């Protein structure tokens, strides 16, 4: 198979890579670019652990081809903190212990970031619906929902 040359922007940085035509964006991020924050849970778009934002849209990177990132803007969990300064969502996930094993956490953080960008004051129900594409088998979700509510308050005040 011939490789596909891709020029894209990831977390604000211009990035170029060669990938196979059937290689997913998730595999490119993890295996070619060393960005291992996005996780492969199911590989079929059900669990949300591989969530990234492409041109302002929340997507599962396992359901996007690496070749499709040409000319796009990709945001991953690696771009969420500013240096040592955690994003309010990251801070609140820590404070509320909204994670146990942590595999789903990058996906939840990215999905929650997208949710709050589009709806800065979500109700509990809106948070639960908004994060329904992210599965967590440890927390039972309550702590995650509370962390997102708390982060929303902090971000509104910022």
């Amino acid at each position, binding site marked *: 198979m011939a490789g596909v040359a891709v020029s894209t922007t990831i977390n604000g940085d211009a990035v170029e890579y060669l990938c196979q035509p059937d290689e997913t964006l998730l595999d490119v991020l993890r295996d070619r670019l060393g960005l291992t924050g996005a996780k492969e849970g199911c590989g079929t778009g059900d669990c949300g652990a591989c*969530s990234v934002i492409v041109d302002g*849209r929340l*997507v599962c990177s396992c*359901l996007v*081809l690496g*070749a499709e990132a040409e000319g796009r803007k990709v945001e991953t969990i690696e771009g969420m903190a500013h240096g040592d300064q955690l994003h309010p969502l990251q801070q609140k996930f820590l404070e509320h212990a909204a994670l146990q094993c942590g595999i789903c956490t990058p996906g939840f953080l990215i999905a929650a970031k997208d949710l709050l960008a589009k709806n800065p004051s979500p109700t509990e129900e809106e948070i639960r619906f908004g*994060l*329904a*594409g992210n599965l967590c088998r440890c927390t039972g979700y309550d702590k995650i929902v509370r962390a997102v509510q708390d982060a929303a308050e902090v971000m509104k005040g910022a």
Partner: protein
Amino acid sequence: MRYIRPLSIEDAVGELAKAVGPAAILAGGSDLLVRMKGGFIEPELIVDIKAISGLADITETADGFRIGAAVPCAVLGENKAVRKAWPGVVEAANLIGSKQVQGRCTITGNLCNASPAADSVPALVAAAAKAVVAGPSGKRTIAVESVPTGPGRTSLAKGEIIEAILLDKRPEHAGDAYLRFIPRTEMDIAVVSAGVNLTLDDKGAIKTARVALGAAAPTVLLVEEAGQVLVGSKLDEGTLERLAKICSGACRPIDDKRGTIEFRRKVAGVLAQRAAAIAYKRAGGK
């Protein structure tokens, strides 16, 4: 395998028409990539249609709306004009998958994937939506219900691509609705579903009606008799009972892990009644 991103529909059609091995069209990929991952298809050519001019746009025309084949359902849901004119179509489209899937999936893909349980399709059939098909011998416009021919199969010929879905402009006193039954609150595949589209006269009596059922047969069903029984009525109890009976009778469902034949028949009638009531209210009926 080859991945290409043509800039014109003619180039895309040309590449698909001359493809020797299995070829696939990629818009949102939420079905295609899952099927590739599962080994159900191994395309030798993937034609990404998202860079084709106009395919990622929703345009309002003199006749209604043109929804490009590459418009994600999330974008469709944010379009106020379509939402106002066709709330049933939009709510059906927005039921597909999670937020992540919504960012990618398209109603054209939902139609061409040809699942009997596709959420947007009964709503589109009820809406009398049309598909613009581009192919080696030019373009044609067909009714959406003529696209799926069985589970996973369509009437599209080699080299053909649906480039857009057309929805008519709405007259006064019009409304549509879509409902599905799933055992949980979201993120599931319809066990059975119903789409209803109505227009009313000035006195609130139903002037035209289309009823479609999902997951009730090998393809989404347009139940013409169910539409006919509604015409002239104001959705009185007797009419709703006849509607449910016709819908239950029109079903040719299967038994599977998601529901039995008996359950699907019963619920198809109930959902048609409820969707008709919502559509009637949206059309301004009392």
